[in-house]
């Protein structure tokens, strides 16, 4: 049985449309104009226990809204969802004991206190027995190498250190389902890498089901076998990372390195010339044409080196986002 099931989930917001200027603002006091924002337009999703799924999508695609719906923070406009058999927005304590949400842009730890005080509070709220609490906390702080920072007020920590502390806070009660909303946002490469490593190992050891949203393709490539692309409030793609390129890009990138002095000027007839740095030329070529183009160019010109690659994933996805929006 799937651990997360989402059917036709929608969330619409009514927002007050503000017009520019003082006069318009004054009129707005008496007559308000509203527009409907369709943040989530009908998402369908099934996740099995132990999966690590990435949500990709441009800003405003509905990723965070979906995570908030699944955490029961907001109520949906329509559709159904169950997580571990619970309807999230009923906000039952039994459900809330078994999952966690981490938001990279918000912090839940007490700003002026050392993180360990917030952890103790979590222990009381979740009713975690002393020995288990200490055991879990020791492991997590050890893994993330933050044991020494436990006694330092949170406001004095760096962004990366704080994010680690937030992660620990979310994991103290050993959730079975974990929602991560951009956990590496704003972090430097090293901190990003540490958190990726940690998440991967944690997930492998515990079998926790994780839904992750991120803007960093590296996070996704390092962690998730399955990618769900959300754009315009709908699921546009659901499958493996490699499959994205197959499905959405009909092109290959062919790089030709010509012999010294060879400078053909009719390359555009094979495809798009992406880059010219003699003796190297990059061509974007329709997949089906690649063998023919290679055969012809190799026959016609003196060529020293050839490579054929998929277009970079980020570009494919950027193109895809662009098309949808």
């Amino acid at each position, binding site marked *: 049985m799937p651990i997360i099931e989402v059917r036709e989930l929608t969330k619409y917001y009514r927002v007050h449309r503000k017009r520019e200027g003082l006069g318009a603002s004054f009129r707005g006091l008496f007559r308000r104009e509203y527009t409907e924002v369709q943040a989530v337009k009908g998402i369908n999703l099934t996740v099995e226990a132990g999966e690590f799924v990435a949500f990709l999508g441009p800003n405003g695609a509905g990723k965070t809204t979906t995570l908030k719906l699944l955490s029961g923070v907001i109520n949906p406009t329509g559709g159904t969802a169950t997580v571990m058999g619970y309807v999230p927005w009923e906000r039952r304590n039994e459900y809330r004991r078994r999952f966690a*949400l981490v938001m990279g842009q*918000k912090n839940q730890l007490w700003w*002026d*206190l050392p993180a360990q005080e917030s952890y103790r509070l979590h222990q009381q709220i979740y009713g975690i027995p002393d020995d288990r609490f200490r055991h879990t906390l020791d492991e997590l702080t050890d893994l993330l190498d933050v044991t020494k920072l436990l006694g330092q007020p949170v406001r004095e920590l760096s962004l990366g250190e704080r994010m680690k502390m937030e992660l620990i806070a979310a994991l103290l009660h050993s959730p079975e389902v974990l929602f991560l909303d951009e956990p590496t946002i704003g972090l430097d490469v090293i901190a990003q890498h540490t958190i990726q490593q940690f998440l991967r190992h944690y997930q492998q050891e*515990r079998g926790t089901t994780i839904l992750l949203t991120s803007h960093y393709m590296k996070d996704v490539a390092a962690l998730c076998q399955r990618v769900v692309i959300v754009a315009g409030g709908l699921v546009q793609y659901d499958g493996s990372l490699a499959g994205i390129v197959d499905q959405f890009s009909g092109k290959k990138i062919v790089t030709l390195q010509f012999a010294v002095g060879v400078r053909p000027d009719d390359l555009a007839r094979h495809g798009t010339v992406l880059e010219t740095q003699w003796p190297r030329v990059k061509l974007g070529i329709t997949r089906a044409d690649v063998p023919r183009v290679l055969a012809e160019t190799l026959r016609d010109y003196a060529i020293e080196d050839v490579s054929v690659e998929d277009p970079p994933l980020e570009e494919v996805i950027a193109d895809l986002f662009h098309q949808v929006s």
Partner: protein
Amino acid sequence: MGAELMSVNNLSSLSSQPVAEHRGESESPSRLAEFRRYLRVFLTFARNSLIRDMTFRADFIFHCISSVAWTAMNVGFYVLVFRFTSMIGQDTGWGRDEFFLFLATVWFINSLVQAFFMPNANEFSELIRTGGLDFALLKPIDTQFLISFRRIEWSAMSNFVVGLLIAGVSLHSMATRPESPVFPSLMSWILYPFFVGCGVAIMYSIMICLAATSVWLGRNQSLYDFWFYITNFSRYPMEIYDTPLGRPLLGLFTLVIPVLVVVNVPARILAKPLNPRADWEWLLAAWAVIATVLCVAFSRWLFRLSLKSYRSASS
């Protein structure tokens, strides 16, 4: 950092913990266990707030001094008033000693509300506006409880101590005065804290209702102001509204927004301005109990309704 990455390999030590076991124990916790959990959370809040207050020591001391100074000015003002009159109104029984006992009650209730609920209600509006409420909604504990007790402003309790002082002086003066000395009965001593508690509960409910409206209003910075306007009516003996113009106010603030019973009921019980007590005083006390229950129930209903409309903020 290298050590950090390597330490990730220790993860194999992450023993697959008995998740199922701990679920079993939390499935249907007994009422007593739940009560103890809530009590522990409350104590942790109190403790964390104290740690925080002590971190900002100067702020804490300054806050104590300024609020005690404000009290002293009030006391001075009323001492001055009683140099021109011996009683508030005619035959109301609110002489100087009785009135200062009333004032002490105002101070008890206000300091309790300020210490326990004011910072939380104010933060609640802020949590709604910024979307910080998200985290409170994730916790497996009653959201209203979590929001209401998160922070305790210990410095506000300095006014409680001042209230004790005022009450002590006026009780002593009442007991030792040559003309009709008053000794509160045992019953009064029992009922007084009970009705002070009712008063605090009513004030808390009004505050939560005001704070919950920020869900619909988007922002509610006038919360403090509105609170001040309303509660100002509670700070004087209700007899002063007993005029043709004041009676509608008396009705409104007794029956609809019952701020008048908040201080009046406990203060009358201890100060006993009317001797013997009048029948309507007992009716008023009974109403205070009913009003407390209604207010708390209403605030809870409104709070839950507001959570349904909560939209969170962009992250």
